[in-house]
């Protein structure tokens, strides 16, 4: 499957989940009310510039810190096309995969805000056709890929309940 979306670049490493969504919004009774506050600390007005299908790109250890599931969940609910990073924090990676969010690991460079990004996970590349740039994406390991293909951990668990037993 190929997806195309407009780039929003956060050219930093260790982007903390507190920066994806601040603690002050964790208490919202309706989780959707927190969506406009995504990346508010780092990039005021981010949500006004964002459209469903857009793609976020960042550096190493994206989603560091708190394992609040709000971070990947709000990104998913915002309609984001994919989150691209050089690497992901363990907590964000697991939560993202478990929620069926598309997480793409690749050593990207020279991509700027507004570039049209094309991603093909099956063929394993991310490209910017206008700039003639192409980067290899890393394959998801073992069960993570199966969970992603099922659409998340809950559907995977429902289909493969027998695997969740220790013999």
């Amino acid at each position, binding site marked *: 499957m190929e997806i195309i979306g407009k780039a929003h670049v956060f050219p930093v*490493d*260790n982007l*903390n989940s*507190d*920066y994806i969504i*601040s*603690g*002050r919004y*964790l*208490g*919202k*009774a309706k989780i959707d009310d927190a969506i406009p506050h995504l990346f508010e*600390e780092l990039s005021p007005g981010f949500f006004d510039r964002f459209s469903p299908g857009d793609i976020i790109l960042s550096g*190493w*250890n994206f989603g*560091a*810190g*708190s*394992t*609040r*599931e*709000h971070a*990947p*969940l709000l990104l998913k609910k915002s309609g984001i096309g994919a989150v691209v990073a050089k*690497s992901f*924090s*363990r*907590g964000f990676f*697991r*939560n993202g995969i*478990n*929620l069926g969010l598309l997480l793409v690991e690749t050593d990207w460079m020279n991509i700027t805000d507004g570039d049209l990004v094309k991603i093909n996970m099956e063929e394993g590349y991310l490209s910017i056709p206008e700039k003639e740039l192409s980067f290899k994406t890393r394959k998801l*390991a*073992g*069960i993570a890929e199966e969970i992603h293909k099922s659409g*998340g*951990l*809950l559907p995977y*668990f*429902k289909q493969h*309940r027998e*695997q*969740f*037993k*220790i*013999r």
Partner: protein
Amino acid sequence: MGKTIAEKLFSMKSGMDVNAGSICMAQVDFAMMHDVNAPFAIDAFAEIEDGRIFDTSKVAVVLDHFSPAPSYDAAQRHKNIENFSKQHGLKLYGPGEGICHQLLLENGHVGPGDLVAGTDSHTCSYGALNAFGLSVGATEMAVILASGVCWFRVPESVSIELVGALHDGVTSKDISLEFISKLTEAGGVYKSLEFHGAGLTSLTIDSRIVLCNMASEVGVKSAVMPCDKAVNDWRAERGMPVRTGIEADSDAVYSNSLTIDLSALKPKIALSPVIEDVVDVDEMAGAPVHQVVIGSCTNGRYEDFEQAAGYLRGRHIADSVRLILVPASRQILSKMVQEGLVQTFLDAGAMILPPGCGPCAGIHGGLMADGEVVLSTTNRNVQGRMGSKKADIHIVSPATAAISAVTGKITSPI
């Protein structure tokens, strides 16, 4: 080839012979969820047909981040979590009981050799008791509640050897800031920190918890320490049975290693807004401070308050400073009352909040205004973590925090 503690633990819990890099299904010995992630876990659990809790004696639910409820939304959230806990017969720790990690440790829910899953990034704290604490998300928690099992990748381990002994006024918080600056914020991603050495033996369990807790700030999967006499003495004092725990093989293979000479350490400070940006407190001496926070799952234990009291007894905090204390549990607060620390703190001009997470996660209980500086014994200093994103959060030990509250300026305790 020898095995690390992590490799031995996952071999035991998966029933297979696994090594770093293996992916396995593993049995969870105890599961904890708190009031930030529980609402999602409850929703996800409801989607599982025929969903029953795998073992109600192996689950605790803790209301700590929003306690006591600072808003109508939070109150309603607590009510929903309480209803779920009652409906399924789960142990619930309500507002004012304390922070999830302290409650699991001091109430004997977790012990040597256990695999523990919790919906919090500081679940790694249990390593101080030779338990392997893994932070999980809410969706994973729902699956664990239903099955007692989850998938895990066996982590590589980083060996951290502590040698020498700390000088007075230098604490395990300073050791943690040292390893964070050495390993960097991404230095532990998907790894487990395994602590060893004579320097570790000299540390109390309260101090050891700080090291495992702060391992979270280098992105670890977990952190773990040997099950030695101090661990079993600590458990025996609380009426918990002796366990042998899990020991690493002498020829275990580590991805990298770090040695820290405790006698060479001076008090440290992690500067806003990057936790790996660590310098000696001396380098910042004299800079103004508006608020001091002593507490959290990192440094809210009795030992921390006893140490802080040493700097505050018979003194008063500077007029320009607010001092907020947040004990990590009711047990700790109770001991503070018995030992007269509460009076010492009140006489010194401190506020004492009910046991819980306090302002650490920026939800309530002492948030910051624009342009202010907070010295905090908590664990994260990213912008906006504790109120205004234009406030600076510097992370320090309880000793540095307490003496700085008195002077109103960043001050080294030695």
